[in-house]
């Protein structure tokens, strides 16, 4: 029974907020890392998210997205990847030289492939 659904009990079982690393799906991470090895270098400083144009007015957050990809949390990614405008500002700021723009493109690509069962 999903959250929000009414029933005779007047409450539902809360969905888990847990990141279960043993069941999460890291195919997207593998897809990106193989094609853009600099992805492994991110140390989550958040510079990309601070400078991001899209992030000022939407929930897009590249720093968090990278974390989700690494943990194999695919669900939150699906919408995230569509918000980036690929302007490339994040490339300028990254202190570790991650090809951030390509990471977003690859993430979007991986999600599309995932939906077509090609990953």
């Amino acid at each position, binding site marked *: 029974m999903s959250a929000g659904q009414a029933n005779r009990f007047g409450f539902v079982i809360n969905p888990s907020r847990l*990141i279960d690393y043993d069941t999460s799906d890291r195919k997207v991470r593998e897809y990106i890392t193989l094609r853009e090895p600099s992805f*492994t270098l991110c140390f989550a400083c958040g510079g990309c998210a601070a400078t991001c144009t899209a992030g000022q007015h939407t929930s897009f957050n590249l720093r*968090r997205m990278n974390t989700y990809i690494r943990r194999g949390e695919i669900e939150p990614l699906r919408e995230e990847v569509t918000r980036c405008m690929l302007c490339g500002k994040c490339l300028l700021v990254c202190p570790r030289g991650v090809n951030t723009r390509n990471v977003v493109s690859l993430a979007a690509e991986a999600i599309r492939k995932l939906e077509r069962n090609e990953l």
Partner: protein
Amino acid sequence: MKSTQLHIMVAGGGVAGMEAAGTLAEMGYRVTLVEKGDEPGGHLLQWHALFPDRRPAEEVRSYLRKRIEHRNISIITKTTVEKIRHHISGLEVNLSGGTSEKADAVIVSTGFDLFDASRKEEYGYGIYDNVITSAELEVMFNRGRVAKADGTVPSRIGLIHCVGSRDEKVNNNHCSKVCCVTAVKQAIEIRKMLPSCEVFCFYMDMRMYGPYYEELYRESQEFYNVNFIRGKVSEASVNINNRLVIKVEDTLAGRPLKMELDIMVLMAGMEMAASGMKLAEASGMKRGINRFLETTDHHYGNNLSGIKGVFYAGTCTAPMNITDTISHARAAVAETVRYLNGR
């Protein structure tokens, strides 16, 4: 008085004590090095390789061994310094065997104890089979094989930073400084030894303060695919397959995370050595709120005890790495010589 007629006792034969003894002997002083273990070397005796360059620990061990091979140095092992007394004629040092020696100066280099990881009860060290300390992992490296308690090869290892450090619950608010870089070094070594084994570091902050430490951190990500999760592991347990299950907040995702591990390595921190505390109590040496020996000034007097003729070297004053310990020991010698010349 000529240096050859002066006698200096060094209490503790780890890195600091060995370097201090060697430097003093080289300068012509007569030195007695007192070591509680079977041989000098301290914690370094168990260590396989050193950060940041992963050089064999044996290289530094052999340097230090050569350092104390000097006719001016006599070494007493299996013995601790119990008390330093003041007489008009100079210092008297009581040893654990009941004997005592006269000295013109004493360098205290009693070092640190590794935090007893079983005090962090929630990690189940001493209870769950595959919970080990960073020191025990080093012994595995020495043996050339990293394996689970049942002898099988691990497929996922987690290294837990800050075990016994930065933790009010175990009365240690201090940072042990060397554990972050040790974890990164060990993570790389595991990945080199077992390329199919995933490695995770669970950290609160990455404190890569020394030269080439930050570079090592980068290398671990770039070339060894070591994973870093920012969060303090709150507890460990085992599942029906006897695999460890840990709970941690992935603070960057803002969500709790659960992960199974084959081996959990606890990066045990540094605490003031129990033997040093005993000596300090008996001899009226002051200790700070972190229980390490308190120096007269932490900027420009950090080898000075405030007691005439007594000087401090190494990790009995604060956690430090080998490089800093060696420098600190040499500085203690400089202070000792300055004192002796000025008498």
